[in-house]
């Protein structure tokens, strides 16, 4: 479904991606793990065309989307929950949700989806009239995910969804991830919490300084000693 070939990206003169090759098949949850600054977020941003691609190609359903503008990419069904949530602080929770469905025209289904999204995260229902900027970190994260779901994406890019969330919410979010996957959405998931991510994912890639260094099925990665040492924290006290 999504195919990255030798993708490179630059911030000014700094090369953040040095040739990332990976693929996501329809119906999968693919997980991207790696240390801070490895280029995970940059990879997602390159897919969404927020960061210009400096080399290599990105194909979606066989179609080259490397140079497509961000809004065109979104229109194709690729939505992102960006790192740092990027909630619209001066829009209410409801308005934020509606922004998620910006490109959608099917008004009828919108209401239902809205209700559905609020059911996934009941706390948002309580806060639906509050401004996005005044939500707590965790609430914002939930809102960001709910907002992305409003677009009914075919491929959802999730950047560290568990960051800063209470354990109970993390659990909940991973449940939601599996749920939307079974409902038919393909997911590309970036996570620091590799343990949990690999438990829900089908396959995974490990990124180091802008390159894919290990790839395999989730089970393989979980068993890989290099992964265990660096990303799973097995020997934690």
């Amino acid at each position, binding site marked *: 479904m999504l195919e990255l070939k030798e993708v490179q990206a630059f911030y000014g003169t700094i090369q953040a991606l040095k040739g990332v090759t990976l693929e996501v098949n329809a119906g999968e949850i693919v997980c991207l793990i790696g240390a801070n600054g490895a280029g995970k977020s940059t990879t997602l941003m390159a897919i*969404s065309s*927020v960061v210009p691609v400096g080399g290599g190609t990105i194909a979606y359903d066989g179609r080259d989307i490397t140079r497509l*503008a*961000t*809004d065109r990419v*979104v*229109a194709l069904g690729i*939505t*992102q929950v*960006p790192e740092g949530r*990027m*909630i*619209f*602080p*001066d*829009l209410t929770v409801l*308005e934020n949700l*509606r*922004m*998620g469905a*910006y*490109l959608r025209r099917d008004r009828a289904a919108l209401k239902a989806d809205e209700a559905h999204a609020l059911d996934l995260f009941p706390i948002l229902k309580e806060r639906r009239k509050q401004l996005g*900027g*005044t939500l707590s970190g965790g609430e914002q994260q939930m809102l960001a995910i709910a*907002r992305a779901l409003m*677009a009914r994406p075919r491929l959802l890019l999730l950047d560290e969804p568990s960051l800063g969330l209470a354990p109970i919410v993390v659990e909940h979010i991973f449940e939601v991830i599996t749920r939307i996957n079974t409902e038919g959405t393909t997911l590309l998931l970036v996570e620091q919490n590799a343990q949990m991510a690999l438990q829900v994912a089908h396959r995974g890639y490990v990124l180091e300084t802008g390159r894919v260094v290990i790839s395999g099925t989730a089970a393989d990665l979980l068993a890989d000693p290099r992964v265990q040492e660096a990303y799973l924290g097995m020997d934690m006290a």
Partner: protein
Amino acid sequence: MLEQQLINGLTLGLIYALIAVGYTMVYGVIQLINFAHGEIYMLGAFFCVTLITAAGLPFYVAMLMAVVCCAMCGILLDIIAYRPLRRAPRLAALITAIGMSIFLQNLALIIWGSRSKPFPRTALPGYLTEQALTVGSVGLSWLQLFIFAVAIGMMLLLYLVIQKTRIGTAMRALAQNRTAAALMGINVNRVISFTFALGSAMGAVAGILVAIYYNTLYPTMGYTAGVKAFAAAVLGGIGSVPGAMAGGVVLGVAEALGAGYVSSLYRDGVAYAVMIAVIVLRPSGILGRAVTDKA
């Protein structure tokens, strides 16, 4: 006399408000103080008059075409001057805006000459030049009523566009986080262009109204009006459209009352003093929202 001064102030204030709206919208969306906005206002008046005198068009047609031309100028201004600076520091864009303002003003000076021009009265619909009603010593002209109607109508329309339409919400979203807006599928450049077009159109309308009201237009007219309108926009709470309206009216009335009761020489002074006082007491303008800095 008070009533008369209030009417005068209101007329002036609504015109300021119309210009201020352009500032506020652009500011709201890309945090840029578009100092060239005053020049768009000037261009509006000149386009309209040129279309009437040179092309012989009837007033309403000329006005409409001038407004459309200005909207396009606004878009061009954005594409040529501001778009390349989207990621640059804010002040760079501000300096560019000032540069464009100087450029446009002097361009107009070369094209149309520096002499003040009268607005071709004969092209105006007859009723616009007449007095609507006179009560005692208080007079209200049709022209003033026309200005009230156009200004308030345009601003209501604008408010609805921003609050109720899809592109309006997109404008608001864009204002808050450009990347996130793009990730929602919003065509950022198109929405910004739309904002410039809308703001410039309002500015052009204001320019034309002023040219009729005072029966004069000259290339440097954009400067003072632009500065006042900018003050009005900030006074109202920059980025807020109803705020710009409130700010414009407050400033206009303060000016008229200041000239009438305090000292005609301190007329602008009164306006600025009121502005400073309001901002000091309400640090985010009349209708602006306080910025919450979350730790």
